[in-house]
């Protein structure tokens, strides 16, 4: 693993400056069913292909970013500030 991530704040940086934060998930509403919560805690899509995921620029600006990464090729097609709407 040696790819670069473009931090919206700092520019192109080695992936080793970042902490991986997992794929983006949708947190259930507070009154959701126990099944929905359990699925949110433990189930992941584990996509073979491009997925949106969290990265934290630990040895840089210490901000969270979202990257679209192909999990097979490690090609990062997009990085951006998170926008959870």
């Amino acid at each position: 693993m040696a790819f670069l991530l473009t931090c919206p704040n700092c520019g192109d940086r080695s992936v080793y400056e970042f902490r991986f934060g997992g794929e983006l998930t949708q947190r259930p509403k507070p009154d959701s069913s126990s099944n929905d919560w359990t699925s949110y805690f433990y189930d992941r899509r584990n996509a073979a292909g491009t997925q949106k995921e969290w990265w934290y620029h630990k040895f840089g600006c210490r901000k969270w970013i979202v990257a679209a990464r192909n999990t097979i090729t490690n090609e990062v097609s997009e990085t951006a500030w998170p926008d959870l709407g």
Partner: protein
Amino acid sequence: MTKLKAAPRLDPHPTQLIDRSASIEFAFGGRPVQAFEGDTVASALYAAGVRTFSRSFKYHRPRGLLCVAGRCPNCLVNVDGVPNVRSCTEAARPGMNVTSQNAWPSLDRDILSVLDRFGPLMPVGFYYKTFHRPKLFWRLAQPIIRRVAGLGKIDVDSAHPAGYAHQNLHTDVAVVGGGATGISAALSANLGAAVTLIDDSPVLGGHLRFDTTSHSVVPSVDPSPGFEVAAELVRQVRSSAGITVLSNSVAFGLYEDNLLGVLTTDRLVKRRAGRIVMATGSIEQPLVFDGNDRPGVMLSSGAQRLVRLYGVKPGETAVVATATNEGYAAALDLHNAGVRVAALVDTRPEPAWGALPDAVRAAEIPTLVSHAVTLAEGRAEVKAAVVQKLEGGVPIGERQRLACDIICMSGNLEPADALVRQSGGLDIPKNVYAAGSVAGAGNLAQAVDQGRQAGTLAAGSSSELPLAGSSPPERAAPFLSGKKSFVCFCEDISTADIDQAIDEGFDDIQTLKRYSTVTMGPCQGKMCHAAVAAISARATGKSLSEVGSTTSRPPLQPVPMSALAGRVHLPIKRTPMDRKHIDLGAKMVDLGPWRRPFSYGSPQDESISVRERVGIIDVSTLGKLDVRGPDSPALLDKVYTHNFSGLRNGRIRYGVLCADNGTIMDDGTVTRLADDRYFITTTSGNVESIEEWFKWWMAGTDIEAYVTNVTSGFAAINVAGPKARETLSKLTDIDLSTDGFRYMRSKEGVVAGVPSVLLRIGFVGETGWEVHFPGEFGEHMWDALMDAGRDFGIAPFGLEAQRILRLEKGHIIVGQDTDIVSTPLDSDMEWVVRFEKEDFIGRGGLVAARDRGLTNKLVGFRMRDGTVPDDGDPIVDRGQPIGKVTSARLSPTIGKGFGLAWVPVELAEEGRNISIRIAGADVPATVSLTPVYDSEGKRLKE
């Protein structure tokens, strides 16, 4: 021992690297060897008459020089305790101690060479087949095989060098390969970019620097011998300020986004390049015939290197076997060096044409077309070559025996494309350009031209199509099948072994590789990949492109583990009072990143001192977060299970952070300093991840709060004990009275002249204050407190005393008393969870846990006899483990063992009997739900 006698060298020539005026001496197997400055270990040894350089991996066959270019496994030696050094690229240095490896008692008489006669015991894939039955046989054979297997021995007792440094560098353009192509690329690229030129030789120029034929490739220079062209190119590189040259440097790996792993003599360089030009050239392949591994059988380029670079005469009589015109150049070089060329044996069906074959004819070197060497006679040295006529690639007819002491062989030139193929796909990755013979250039002019083009493209910002790579030639040098016709010199694999493996069903080149281990040795396929592909093609009836190639992976060349590991970096965080602890003779422990005092002598005495008088402990390691902004109350209500928006200014509340599934992540105190400002402490090792955690829950939201990690900016000392108030009063005007400064309150003020934040909390269960202040006053504050408390018998206490004291109060340590599945509910802290809040991180999981009901619970226990369990001892019921002790100590208060433990919920009741297995014996204990010390909590509020 007697000196190895060196044969006289050839006449001096400009291509030679040796300095005959500088004589040096080193030892080989204890015997002195004479060398010149500029020699490699191998060239000096060869000149001194050494022919056997190593013993082969499996059969312990004698092996001599093969490639003389640092690619094959044949010349591996041990140099000054470092195993597997390539003697053909290792510069000879005075006093170095060179020894052979993989041979006992000596290279010439290696007892394990009997293995050569027991080939049937070790068929291809033998580790899957033999020594398995009966089972006892494997148990007997395994230790022997283990000892015999492997190449070289690591001397664990030898004094190790400091280790390789790691360097991270960037460059606009990296050029791999310092031959004519690479230099041309670097020069062109340097017109518009900073360039790094990476070359594995000590001297730039590639094979051109020992080429004596005439070339006209540099426009300003008349046609001149190759070595002069090379010298001119090197001169141009040296005078280019924008080109950084890394010599003796192997680019062993191509990783994502153009990261090159480069091994230099003392560093591992991770070089990120905007564009990369691959000018890695091509590799002359061995021919495959019986005995092609005998010492004296070498690549023709290897013989040329001996002659041209080191002035070493490779032998007296040579037979040159070739499949290309390269062999003609070698035959001429040998002829001119005074070696009698008994025959030039060309496997090609038609007579060759061009300048080189003409020169060979003019020199009257006997040439046999459509012939092949089919056998090298001899054992430790070649005695003769057996030559036969070929028809359709098959030897037929009379066996002609030609006496000789060297056989030079020249198979196809295979593109050295393993590095570029490491990208995984069939296509050249973007921003990587291939040029020169690796990309199929047929001659020097073409190669230089490709180099220039690639350099220009690499320097430009245009995204023009990269140059295409070459496809492997659809022709293969002929090979012969035999048990001793070696394809793979690294792992002793013959054509017969490959044929057998294919017969057994491993007919895909990838599985063939895994089964036979061909291409998996130190040369990583450089000497064998083409032959394996050709044999597979013949056996399976496929074309070479259908057979394909094995996957190329880093490292291209063997890389020492110490280079990958780098130097040992164990950074330790020291608190601002570290020197005070050292002066006091504290026993220090490493905890996470921190070095902390474990104890200053007796943890029990330190505990008693806190309980009866006053103690201070350095708690600077606590994680400290400054949270401010209008939405900070909302942020804390979200991430903590507790309520913090309702906390009044100047008050402190204990808080637990849970993951969203309800398990405990961390705990600490939260102090509200102002409406929009909180001061948070976390456990010592966790602050980084808690900072990330807070920020994660803010990311992409409109929460306006600012989290700053101020851990290293602040020092902190906890002053605790019945005399804490008197001690601290001497240093501050702050009202510390019971009513003026109550438990779980905070104040800002000046202590010992230093602006501080005081938190009145009671982790150890006594009246006490945590004093937080700027780190630069650490030693000053420590001294001030020690002075102020002297009259009251103040004593510093360490981590161990703190653990005893907090345990007596039943205060948990996250990570010690809780684990990855513990929740506040089963950790007996339901009171920190505010289910009435509409939402907080962990609510979903905790609601589920509450509805499910508890299975286990964290409880206190006390021993009935004098035993003290260890942390981690199991709780047992009729021999079965049902829980575990998380913390246990001897209590100074009750004089007995006690602690915290996880037990099934039905046992989590006051007075229940449990059994703890301590050192094999089941010892009774009693569940106790009240703290050992001050169960009503009066002391810490006094």
